[in-house]
């Protein structure tokens, strides 16, 4: 029983990260129509930036560990915002009138470039980073649970809630949703469409980067970190349903559970296949996922 608790807590922590990444992926698609296959690499960049800034922020904010972490997070978000703007200008704008496959290949190509730029910059050795909450473990009904796992769940929840509030409870969010619904109508309504697109990409990259920051202390950072994450996040988006924040959460957690419980109780070798089989099943039986809107083909 204690083992089950341990596994479930881990699964929810991993699932929370998948949920954040799935959200990044979904927002890119819903708001800009881009199926962003570079999502995983964006997660990696976030993690790597975190590793680097942690090293430097210690110099400026010496004393408090909390201040150091906060400064590091701020620098990472700044960095990811820049990445987002570059993505907007370099990938989205030039390709925005192209058909689906061209855009997909475009994001794959830029993902390849990003991953290898990362290798040239940071090298190939894995990097260990410290969690802001340290390496302590708690006793939870006899199960040993790491504080970082709980921290991940909390931070992810806060992030997702913040995104929800932004999208559904703010004026800016209303504009985002109008844009997603009908870009032409939005333009006619006086919405500054390009500025919104740019902001969207900043948000997409910031979310991916945040996921990378949360992952770093769990799994050691190297340039291959994001590859598998991206694919699982896509599965989470499908299972939870596109266009739905609750969908991202449920999808992410389900993928986390399927992966970790599947590894334990079914087969550790085929655990990833279990996740993709689940995704496949949803695609065949209920493509809109658990919470998504009815599947309407996007032109």
């Amino acid at each position, binding site marked *: 029983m204690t*083992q089950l608790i*341990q*596994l479930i807590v*881990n699964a929810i922590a*991993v699932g929370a990260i998948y949920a954040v990444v799935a959200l990044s992926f979904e927002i890119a698609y819903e708001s800009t129509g881009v199926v962003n296959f570079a999502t995983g690499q964006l997660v990696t960049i976030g993690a790597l930036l975190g590793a680097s800034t942690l090293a430097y922020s210690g110099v400026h904010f010496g004393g408090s560990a909390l201040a150091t972490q906060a400064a590091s997070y701020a620098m990472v978000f700044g960095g990811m915002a820049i990445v987002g703007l570059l993505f907007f200008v370099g990938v989205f704008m030039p390709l925005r009138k192209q058909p689906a496959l061209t855009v997909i290949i475009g994001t794959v190509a830029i993902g390849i470039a990003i991953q*290898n730029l990362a*290798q040239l910059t940071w*090298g*190939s*050795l*894995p*990097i*260990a980073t410290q969690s802001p909450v340290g*390496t302590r*473990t708690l006793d939870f009904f006899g199960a*040993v649970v*790491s504080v970082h796992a709980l921290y991940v769940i909390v931070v992810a929840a806060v992030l997702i809630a913040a995104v929800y509030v932004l999208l559904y409870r703010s004026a800016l969010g209303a504009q985002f949703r109008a844009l997603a619904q009908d870009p032409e109508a939005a333009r006619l309504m006086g919405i500054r469409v390009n500025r919104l697109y740019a902001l969207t990409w900043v948000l997409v990259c910031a979310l991916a980067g945040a996921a990378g920051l949360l992952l770093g202390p*769990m*799994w*050691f950072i*190297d340039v*291959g970190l994001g590859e*598998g994450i991206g694919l699982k996040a896509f599965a989470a988006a499908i299972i939870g349903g596109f266009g739905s924040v609750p969908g991202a959460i449920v999808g992410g957690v389900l993928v986390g559970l399927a*992966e*970790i419980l599947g*590894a*334990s109780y079914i087969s*550790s*070798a085929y*655990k990833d296949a279990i996740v993709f089989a689940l995704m496949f099943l949803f695609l065949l039986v209920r493509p809109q996922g658990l919470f998504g809107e009815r599947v309407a083909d996007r032109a």
Partner: protein
Amino acid sequence: MHHDTDPKMSRRRAAAALGAFAAAPLLRPSAAYAADDIVVGATVPITGTFAATGLQYHNSLRLAQDDINAAGGIKGRKLRIVFEDTGGNNSTAVNAFVKLVKQVNPPFVFLSGLSTQALAMEPEVLKAKIPVVTAGGAVAIQERKNPWLFRARPADTLGAGAITYGVIDLLKKSKPGLLYAQDDYGTGAANAVEAMLAKSGVSVVAKEAFNPRDNDFSAQLLSLKNKGADVIVSFNYNRDGALILKQRKSLGLTMPVVAGTGMVAPSTLDLVDPDDLIGVYSTADTMLGEAVSPASADFVRRYVLANKARPDTFGTAYYDAALILAEGLRKVGPDAEKLRAYFAGVKDFKGMARNYTTDPATNNMAHSVVLVSFKPGSKDLVAAAVYPKA
């Protein structure tokens, strides 16, 4: 038609450019080295999953090249090593070797140290008839009985023997659980250990495999615990090894770990904390540095200076192989068959990692390993035993 320039001109220009692009790579590539340099090849994982391991011998081979040339080269001629990236998968590795053979035609190649890649390349080595050295430890390598293939590191059977000794005689455990990477290295080593333990009357209670790129090993670790393992025997690479130790600790598992050499690579140890190493033992090829010789200590110092990282025994094996190669080139010249005979006859060659003598039955050149543990509260290695016992 609305082109900016005269349409006929841009068509022709495009066609010409296309033609030039198409023709250029088909012609023989120009040499990047002087005419009388001696050129040998090296297939190294520079990108991909195993890049961190490959980096160690990419660095050490470059250092070897510089050292050899600084000491006068091969009778005045400079040694040049041409590197090809094997990437993270076997097909790319095979292609890298074939590319070297066809484009550079070297009399010698340093083969990838990943057993799975070395084994994939082995048939091509036989076809090409050039001597190669690998640091891969898999048992399967010597089973191929390829006269051109030499091994500069101890075979995993030696490591298996050391681990068996560690489990039974040192730690006095009787219910080992195996945890291993699901490839030639891990599977071969796990099978070798299982057989050796069985010969001493100890049965393995559980075997769990993993993908080297995995991030979460809790399923495998808990399974080993549930099946009653009182010691974990692990065959891993660096990132996965570090994750295994960390997760073992965070899951609260207390049984000791006896691991293969991947656990003591600097790139693994850099990722863990001293308290992750409590109860952890490992085989190591050798204790580099002072324990071997003053020259070895000097090598370590220079490697750190050049690469801002400590050398591991993998990289050092290649450095030593380069030294042996240089000697061979001086004695018999850049002839593939003569070099092969030279390598087959190596006896008591003093290298930075150990002394090398080629065993004619297996083409293995290294014949001992060390069992190490860690000084409590630190990441310093402490030798627990040498195997086989002298």
